[in-house]
């Protein structure tokens, strides 16, 4: 028997993570703010496959946040259409649409007067879940973000990183097929930001949500995105591609500048030594210099340079599987030896 027929466009999810993801499509999306002559976004076309992380990146004024806020109708579209799971957002009630779309902003916006449990329970309550289901879901999410102990605390009693985790947990509470994140780690110090990014990758590896992730930090985009949409001023799309493609073949001067002159190094940062054809160890003097095979190619190059250009042995556990030499790096990008990102591998690390 079917349960009570809700207004949801998606099948009622059991209170477990990772049950669903939706495709997202922006068709010819245009946004003109009433008090401005220039459009904030013009004719933006993007397709995001279910379960993929799409990073929107660009300088300020490129309309990346605008694009994100159009998706859950926090601001109205001026032209074009947005489809979630094949269904136009224009045909949905905005309030209902937002309940089924996870939403995380930089300042997080936790409710100061509600404790962590109550904050996380916000959307399930709006969706009218019963008490026991809400309680189970809150417990599950606290476990997911590794903060089982803090359910009764108020936001003012949390550290910045904890607040951020709770913000993500709150956005996931209704098990939305689509998650919108606007510079979620922007206000966090670099060390904790890195940790939160790693955590997000692990989480995403497990949950496989469709994610739209807004950032101005291209390195964050390269690290987290399955695909990156680079926007330029006034919201036109400069390039939409995988991180590896964007680093290897920037579409134009703007993209090349935006990703930085160290883009070749960044490209090497996407791969580990496992994806490289190593040099035979025969006769090469590696001394006692060793790197694990899980090292990124970029870090390996750095270590070779630090060793004055001398070769390193590559080890997989106890076993030596080959060596890396300075010459090896020279050909990597030219030969196309590196193909495709290994985000899964990175996420699993």
């Amino acid at each position: 028997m079917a349960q009570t027929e809700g207004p949801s466009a998606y099948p009622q999810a059991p209170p477990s993570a990772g049950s669903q993801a939706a495709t997202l499509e922006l068709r010819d999306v245009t946004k003109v703010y009433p008090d401005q002559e220039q459009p904030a976004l013009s004719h933006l076309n993007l397709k995001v496959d279910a379960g993929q992380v799409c990073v929107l990146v660009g300088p300020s004024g490129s309309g990346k946040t605008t694009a994100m806020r159009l998706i859950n109708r926090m601001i109205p579209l001026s032209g074009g259409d947005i489809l979630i799971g094949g269904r136009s957002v224009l045909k949905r009630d905005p309030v209902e649409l937002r309940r089924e779309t996870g939403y995380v902003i930089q300042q997080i916006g936790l409710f100061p007067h509600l404790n962590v449990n109550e904050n996380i329970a916000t959307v399930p309550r709006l969706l009218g879940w019963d008490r026991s289901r809400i309680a189970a879901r809150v417990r599950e999410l606290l476990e997911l973000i590794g903060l089982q102990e803090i359910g009764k605390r108020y936001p003012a009693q949390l550290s910045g990183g904890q607040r951020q985790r709770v913000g993500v947990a709150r956005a996931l509470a209704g098990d939305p097929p689509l998650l919108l994140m606007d510079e979620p780690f922007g206000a966090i110090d670099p060390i904790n930001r890195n940790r939160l990014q790693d955590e997000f990758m692990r989480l995403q590896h497990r949950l496989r949500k469709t994610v739209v992730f807004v950032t101005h930090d291209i390195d964050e985009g390269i690290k987290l995105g399955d695909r990156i949409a680079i926007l330029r001023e006034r919201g036109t799309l400069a390039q939409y591609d995988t991180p590896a493609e964007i680093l290897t073949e920037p579409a134009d001067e703007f993209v090349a500048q935006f990703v930085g002159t160290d883009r070749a190094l960044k490209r090497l940062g996407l791969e580990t030594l496992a994806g490289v054809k190593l040099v035979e160890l025969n006769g090469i003097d590696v001394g006692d210099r060793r790197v694990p095979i899980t090292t990124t190619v970029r870090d390996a190059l750095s270590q070779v340079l630090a060793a004055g250009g001398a070769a390193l042995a590559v080890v997989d556990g106890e076993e030596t599987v080959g060596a890396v030499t300075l010459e090896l790096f020279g050909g990597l990008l030219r030969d196309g030896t590196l193909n495709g990102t290994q985000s899964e591998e990175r996420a699993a690390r």
Partner: protein
Amino acid sequence: MIVFANGPVIPNFGGGGSTFACERANRLFCPNWVSQNWSSVLWPALRQHIVLTVIAVVIGFAISTALALLAYRRGWVERPVVIVTSILYTIPSLALFELLVGVPGLGLSRTTAEVALVSYTLLIMFRNTLTGLREVPAEVRDAAAGMGMGSMRTLLRVDLPLALPAIIAGVRIATVTVISLATVAALIDDEGLGAPILQAISNEVFKTELIVAGGMAIALALLADGLLVLLQRALTPWARVHQ
């Protein structure tokens, strides 16, 4: 002895004997008088005073909250409300009481007193409530909207709870103000702690009533303020967690 022969100087006591030695000696404060007149004069006056205050604060709260919510949604409402309530707030209380007595249908009555008292609460509570609502962090409101809270739900579940400390702060100031002003209201409505105070003022010598009733008004104000602080703590446990 000649003083006594000229007429009764001391109100609310009669007969002779040693019981009224303090009054006859015209001392500043006579504890005995207090205990003799507690149930007949002071206690009823205190009860009336509390009733006067509660009515004024409740009505004032309702009006100013409604106006603040309106001004929160429609910004232009703020200016006219502030202008009118500021004028009401600055009229000297004595003058306002006398003015209102002349209004047809009011006269010397409790209603007249309440109209005046309420008018003094409006500016304070309106300002506090509106400020409290406007100080709700923008990102909290954005997150509420982004998660699918409608505007009514956001108002009731987010805006008002977060504005509560400011709202109660306004109620505290208004309450203390009304308790103080309600003593003056005895001029037009002969009840409350103002009645014995006026009695003492009109009497040249005997001041015990004034001292006791004045002291009770102060104590009542402190007590009411303290109770409102406790209420605020109970309603906003989140506001006093260690940051």
